[in-house]
């Protein structure tokens, strides 16, 4: 019953999306202007219906209604409740429903609150949002119905992939989806602006909070995903340049560029066509990423939801949306390109540089992700990994980070290095000091070395924009910028330190023996069997000690066996200190010749590695501060306008 309700809500939402598209488009013509009033309410109701459908899916998963095929395929009655609910989006159909839900809700939210732009632009925007939603509704209803029934009803479900049965991961996909799909708003805004040719500071100001919001979720989603891969997969790495990871990184790069170019457009009315372009590209990257991952044309290490049959459907959607938007861009952009002029050495100049570099990195990542496809079409098999991505990315990331240190200190329009030179003395000295220290330590590869030096200099330079300001009166968006840029430095330091100073050790030891890794002594104390709700495990008890006279701490890595579906996972154990993390993975048993069994242990000492994710959180926090600042300023303006209108009315004017 609930499943049918969800399905009905989905069909209704699709019907309303058609109405929203038609009414929005007609309202732009002279004859159809009477329809304008319908567009916003329809958008809101459409969002609520999508939410209802998603609520129904959550319900059937929560009660494990095995008569629904999707539940039977992806859930199990013996799972903890939180993973039952998370199972709703841990599969293809459910995650696509989450996608349209977020899209409908975002459209409804925009319809409800966004009143700054001229109404025709808003109508075109909402029609555009409905147009994009419509394709995904069609995809859900025709090719991946999440509410399909199963007869006969099976006695038990197949269970959820054990790797996904992790609290962090339960909330990682929804976070990323809020980011991916939130960018659809920027896409629709860009289409709306292209249709009405209204590109200006007001447009940038209206679009910016939505982009910021999506970008915050993307940042958090990527950070969480990286940490999940780090501790759950037990490989000790935090980024693998896997297509799925690249699929999340590319929209983030585009959205980061968009945020910065939108600032230029809002403040100086320059970079008009470029900002529109990035608005289109950011969401296009979300869709392309989803397509690459879902269609199965790229082989990924963590492909959880692959279905080649559906690939063609998504490809057609992509061709219509991205192709259509880019066609519109080609036709219209020539009439919106002209913007204000600015000097090379200016805030705009630095932001343009940042944009070009981010776009170049995006191009590098996209090319590296697609190259195996191109090669395969030519008949060769290649896989592209860190040896390509790291140096090629760094080629553009290093100049970008240098400019990141300088750019925020520059004035709009025109400036000279002479004016800000003095401020940069300390960061430059820090960079020199870091170089000396790095050489003293020795044996550091070029990229981590550059990263360490830049991180130290950048950490100082990033807070310089606060210098000489009254900190209480500094606007929140400025604080946001400083915090985010500082986060970049922190994260960069973590990444560089991890790759420069990590110590790895693979040992096979008997119970009672001690292994050394970096400054740590690790004693294998016992191996005991333990049991969880849907798994059993061998748990190793390690007694670890930092330095010769450190406190002894217990560490409990497990080798888990899940039974629904049957799979082995290794639960790594982590010990975090202020200066890094000790990472332990329990491997298999190796029978010894003398009858005494040895246990494989994989140990890593990773100095300052938690800074990678701490930096990610700081970057997102910077976004939150900026968002609060922008929204508060908008609210203040609305209240002030209301007061003026009220006074005028009272005075009878």
């Amino acid at each position, binding site marked *: 019953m609930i499943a049918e309700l969800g399905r009905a809500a989905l069909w209704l939402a699709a019907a309303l999306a058609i109405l929203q598209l038609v009414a929005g488009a007609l309202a732009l013509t002279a004859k159809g202007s009477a329809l304008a009033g319908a567009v916003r309410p329809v958008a809101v109701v459409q969002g609520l219906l999508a939410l209802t459908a998603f609520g129904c899916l959550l319900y059937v998963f929560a009660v494990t209604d095995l008569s629904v095929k999707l539940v039977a395929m992806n859930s199990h009655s013996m799972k903890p409740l939180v993973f039952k609910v998370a199972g709703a989006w841990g599969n293809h159909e459910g995650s696509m429903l989450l996608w349209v839900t977020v899209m409908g809700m975002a459209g409804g939210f925009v319809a409800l609150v966004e009143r700054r732009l001229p109404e025709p632009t808003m109508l075109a925007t909402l029609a555009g949002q409905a147009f994009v939603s419509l394709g995904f509704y069609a995809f859900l209803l025709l090719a991946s119905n999440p509410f399909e029934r199963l007869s006969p009803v099976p006695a038990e479900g197949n269970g959820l992939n054990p790797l996904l049965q992790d609290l962090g991961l339960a909330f990682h996909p929804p976070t990323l989806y809020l980011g991916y799909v939130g960018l659809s708003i920027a896409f629709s805004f860009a289409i709306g602006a292209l249709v009405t040719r209204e590109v200006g500071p007001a447009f940038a100001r209206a679009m910016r909070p939505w982009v910021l919001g999506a970008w915050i979720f993307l940042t958090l989603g990527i950070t969480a995903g990286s940490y999940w891969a780090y501790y759950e997969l037990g490989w000790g790495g935090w980024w693998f340049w896997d297509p799925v990871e690249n699929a999340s990184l590319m929209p983030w790069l585009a959205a980061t560029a968009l945020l910065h170019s939108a600032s230029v457009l809002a403040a100086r009315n320059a970079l008009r066509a470029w900002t529109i372009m990035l608005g289109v590209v950011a969401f296009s990257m979300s869709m392309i990423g989803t397509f690459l991952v879902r269609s199965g044309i790229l082989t990924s290490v963590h492909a959880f939801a692959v279905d080649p049959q559906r690939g063609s459907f998504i490809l057609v959607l992509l061709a219509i949306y991205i192709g259509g938007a*880019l066609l519109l861009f*080609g036709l219209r952009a020539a009439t919106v*390109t002209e913007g204000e002029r600015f000097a*090379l050495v200016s805030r705009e100049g630095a932001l343009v540089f940042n944009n070009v570099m981010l776009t170049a990195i995006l191009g590098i990542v996209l090319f590296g992700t697609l190259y195996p496809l191109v090669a395969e079409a030519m008949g060769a098999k290649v896989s592209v990994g860190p040896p390509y991505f790291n140096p090629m990315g760094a080629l553009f990331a290093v100049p970008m980070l240098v400019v990141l240190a300088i750019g925020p200190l520059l004035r709009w329009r025109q400036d000279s290095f002479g004016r800000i030179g003095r401020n940069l003395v300390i960061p430059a000295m820090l960079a020199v000091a870091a170089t000396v220290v790095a050489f003293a330590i020795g044996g550091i590869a070029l990229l981590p070395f550059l990263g360490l030096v830049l991180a130290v200099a950048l950490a100082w330079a990033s807070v310089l924009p606060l210098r000489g300001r009254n900190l209480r009166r500094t606007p929140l968006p400025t604080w946001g910028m400083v915090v985010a840029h500082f986060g970049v430095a922190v994260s960069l330091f973590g990444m560089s330190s991890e790759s420069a100073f990590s110590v790895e050790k693979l040992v096979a030891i008997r119970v009672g023996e001690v292994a050394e890794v970096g400054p740590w002594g690790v004693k294998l104390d016992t191996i005991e069997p333990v049991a969880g709700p849907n798994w059993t495990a061998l748990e190793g008890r390690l007694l670890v000690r930092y330095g010769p006279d450190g406190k002894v701490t217990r560490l409990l890595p497990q080798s888990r066996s899940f039974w629904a579906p049957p799979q082995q996972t290794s639960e790594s154990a982590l010990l975090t200190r202020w200066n890094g993390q000790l990472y332990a993975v329990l491997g298999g048993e190796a029978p010894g010749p003398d009858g005494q069994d040895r246990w494989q242990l994989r140990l890593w000492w990773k100095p300052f590695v938690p800074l990678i994710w701490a930096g990610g959180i700081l970057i997102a926090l910077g976004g939150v501060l900026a968002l609060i600042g922008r929204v508060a300023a908008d609210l203040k303006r609305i209240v002030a306008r209301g007061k003026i209108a009220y006074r005028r009315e009272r005075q009878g004017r």
Partner: protein
Amino acid sequence: MSQTNPKAPMWVLWLPLTLFLGFAGLAAYMLAHPADNTVDSKLVGKPMPTFNLPPALPGRPGLDSKVLANGKPHLVNIFASWCVPCRVEAPQLGELAKAGVPIEGISVRDTTENLQGFLQENGDPFQRVGADDDGKVQLALGSSGVPETYVVDGKGIIVYQHIGEIRPEHLGLLLDKLKDAAE
């Protein structure tokens, strides 16, 4: 003063669309031609490694790799008495032997008694059986498990590597490969 003018030339405006169309074309092609995930054996076209294995059974010669280059195609089968799939493929090997295919065996990490029992129970298609007691020849052949079967032509060049047990539906394929090797 240097001024930057953000007005781009016309063709730049169409660049994104062009790139996207290129991507869409590639993706459409890849969807129409799904990836072939079979891994081709690196050994095909290479000569058999040189070895000289002692006899595994009393009264039956061991296996010298020189024998394989005697001008006639051979089937080399890596097997063991402790391997369950080897029992599954035994009837197929029997049929091939009946068809006149010379089959040479390499028994991996086995004992004479177990081997005799295995051949008694499942039939004995082998002309020669070499004892690879430490698995060195198996490693040299790039074989990761048992059973594996190699079609070797008259010059001792590997023509085909069959990984896993030979099932009834594979017989035609193997006979074709043997015919190719004879030419």
